[in-house]
């Protein structure tokens, strides 16, 4: 199948491994990713927190480009980008005044027919293929599926999975052979864009999430958002310093875990880019090639 691709700003730098692993996994599962040409930033938090029109106009430009490329729907791996594009679609559909304003700003008419999907929705459609093609047994790997706050909420905007008791990530993780754990903080916010401007909040919130995953017996956490990944991976040392987290917990992008189960090369999947080393996990599953060493931050 073919789907439009909107990587978003962080997948080119701070979350490179998300992009790398996703492209490899997509190729392996016969999903053709066609990048939206000349896409611009979705505006993320800073646009919607300061300027409503800007927060709708920027994502709409991307959707207009996708429409020009005749893409029926666009995959947004970053949960925040996904939520911004989906929200823009929702506002265009329900706020006629804003829709007219954005149309005049962009100078284009737009029929709002291009859909947006998250990585959870995309991979949910191919769980059968994942199960069939799984080469590396991930049995006994206990995974905490962390949705974050924006992947399936609010339900009126996302329209996918259950906003309080979601299960799409668990289905995908189960298809890889790993065991998703039942835990309580799957939808709690990690602190989002406060990583730089209010780091203490991120440390406080992230610690609760990691603790809960640990208490539920998880060895690995799987995420679907570069911001969540950065907050939980890059900032994990600060959280451990606050106490209570004995061992490190590797934070994997969903595509990295799926890539591992498909037998893809861990270093090509970008696993060497993490701050919290996933080496313990790789050892446990007997991954094909050893990963290059990096100074473990933890």
């Amino acid at each position, binding site marked *: 199948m073919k789907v439009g691709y909107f990587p978003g700003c962080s997948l080119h730098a701070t979350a490179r491994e998300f992009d790398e692993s996703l492209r490899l996994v997509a190729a392996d599962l016969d999903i053709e990713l066609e990048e939206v040409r000349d896409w611009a930033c979705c505006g993320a938090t800073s646009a919607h927190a300061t300027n409503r029109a800007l927060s709708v106009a920027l994502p709409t430009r991307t959707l207009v480009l996708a429409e020009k490329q005749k893409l029926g729907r666009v995959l947004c791996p970053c949960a925040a980008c996904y939520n911004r594009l989906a929200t823009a679609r929702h506002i265009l559909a329900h706020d006629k005044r804003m829709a007219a304003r954005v149309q005049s700003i962009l100078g284009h008419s737009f029929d709002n027919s291009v859909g947006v999907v998250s990585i959870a929705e995309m991979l949910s459609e191919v769980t059968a293929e994942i199960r069939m093609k799984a080469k590396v047994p991930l049995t006994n790997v206990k995974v905490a599926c962390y949705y974050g706050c924006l992947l399936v909420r609010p339900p009126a905007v996302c329209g996918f999975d*259950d*906003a*309080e*008791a979601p299960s799409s990530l668990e289905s995908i993780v189960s298809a890889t052979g790993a065991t998703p754990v039942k835990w*309580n903080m799957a939808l709690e916010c990690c602190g989002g864009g406060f990583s730089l401007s209010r780091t203490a909040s991120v440390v406080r919130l992230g610690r609760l999430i990691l603790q809960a995953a640990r*208490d539920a017996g998880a060895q690995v956490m799987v995420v679907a958002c570069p911001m969540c990944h950065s907050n939980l991976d890059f900032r994990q040392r600060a959280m451990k310093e606050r106490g209570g987290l004995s061992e490190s917990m590797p934070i994997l992008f969903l595509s990295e875990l799926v890539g591992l189960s498909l037998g893809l090369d861990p270093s090509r999947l970008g696993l060497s880019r993490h701050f919290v080393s996933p080496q313990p996990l790789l050892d446990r599953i007997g991954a094909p090639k050893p990963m290059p060493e990096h100074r473990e931050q933890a």
Partner: protein
Amino acid sequence: MSRIGVFICHCGENIDRTVDCARVAQTSGELPGVVHSVDYKYMCSDPGQALIKQAIQEKRLDGVVVGACSPHMHEKTFRKAAAAAGLNPFLCEMANLREHCSWVHEDREQATRKAIDLARFMVEKIKFNRPLSTIFIPVERRALVIGAGIAGIQAALDIADGGREVVLVEKEPSIGGHMSQLSETFPTLDCSQCILTPRMVEVAQHPRIKLLTYSEVESVDGYIGNFQVKIRKKARSIDETKCNGCGECQKNCPNKKIPSEFDQGLGMRTAIYVPFPQAVPNIPVIDRTNCALFRGRAKGVKKVVCSKCAEVCGRKAIDFDQQDSFVTENVGAIIVATGYQLYSIGKEQDSETLRGYGEYGYGTIPDVIDGLQFERLASASGPTGGKILRPSDHKEPKTVVFLQCIGSRDPAKGIEYCSKICCMYVAKHTMLFHHKVHGGKAVVFYMDIRAGGKGYDEFVRRAIEESHALYLRGRVSRIYRNGDTIRVHGFDTLAGEPAVIDADMVVLATAMRAQPGIASLAQKLSVSYDQHGFLNEAHPKLRPVETNTAGVFVAGACQAPRDIPDSVAMASATASKVLGLFSKELLEREPLIARVDRVTCTGCFHCERVCPYGAIERKPLKDAKGRLIKIVAEVNQGVCQGCGTCQATCPSKSVELDGFTDEQIYAAVNAL
């Protein structure tokens, strides 16, 4: 030529202040056919009425038009006066010069001209009035009560004590309803079963009450005074004439692990069971879905899988081949008292518009229970013998958190109304908990406290001041299992602080809803219901126990969320309506109903299709030899409400509303 009398009322100043009544009377007097026209200060008073009577007799009037207030007020008054003077009451009409004129206009000249028009309108109409006589319908003076909870029981007892027979139908194996499941009732903290069971026994023993349990209404035909109700008696698999209630069958049934409905899933029952020890009638029923013998039969197994109950029954009362049977009862009035069910927080709902509570676990957390389940825990005859114990590990919970408004006042989850009883029963629960669990702590998350009944607010204050329940004003965002406890993330809006509590048990005060299947029952009765399934009363203020279907009344929680005292009061009110209906052998009806001209009727039955009340019947017309000429429409005089829809629809103008014929209407309209 007509001899019409016109009487214009001043209504004190109500009409005269704006309308020149003398002028209206004078102008009306000049109309052809009017032989008498006066104005007077108060037509409805005795002297006013005397004027009318006198004029009828002296001037030999054949029609009377009273220009006064709304017919809703005094049409009956003036018609009675006319009848007393020897004039057919339906030759007396009113022109509304008050609500339609003086009360809604200010300009005296314009209002007076309008009043003159209104009077003329009626004068021209009345020239085509025909004398009509009251219609009498025989009444079957027996009542049917559907539902034998406290409301149905009360209604049945009141009617039976009033000297009339009652058929009481209950779909469960025993009567008693939800009240029989309760531990204590507010505000008295009476033991619920202690006050209920005497009534249940009275019902069972009453000579004028025919009790049909484990039965449901299958179909309803007829109309007020003359209903034929077909009732399905579901197969208990027990011969009721033989069973003596000894209970041996239950003791010996090998399947003891079926979740008990009466205990709201917290306890177990057997496949052959009596729902609770005080059940009326004390006759068991076999749950064919779970009974091994019947499951074997359903699979096609030839041999008898199990018949332990039949083997131990000393009276040979078990009948595995029993089938549902039907009885038809003729009754004159029907009372619906089907009660309520509680809202489920689960993901699966029985209505598209409802959503469960994912943030409270979708019903998957074992120690999160609802109000009725707490009642079963607290009840001495319940699964824990009256001890408050956690369903998961049967330990005594020290900290119990109660959440009010679960489902209620929550448009996002599909229900915007308030369920009325929850504030009271949660207060009651905290008091029971305080009494039973020493050192226990009860926390209540609420939005408002609705305690408007007699002694109700004082009751809630007792819960706070004497039982030391902690009341926090704020709704809970989320609850989840956290190790051995349940973490409750709430807020205290009065203190302005988050309130996070680790509870041993959580009780949800879930919304009161109408029973499942109520839509189908309502349709059988032609009773309307709202989007939530609650049955509609005829008028919310002044006719709260009647429905808009004549002869069908409503009592208790099936009409709206309601507590026991109000349900009982409502039930007695319906009984008084029914006894009033039954006070005469014949029902009197106003003859302002439709009538079909058989000669011109072509039998197209458009009228039947559009009649909202089902009042059109098909009548075959036969010649002297019995051969069919044609089938015509006929109006059932007991059901027709005189709405006129048929008259507007009939393509051959064969159906007319007596009192509002086309002739009358055209004459009046042309007069303007």
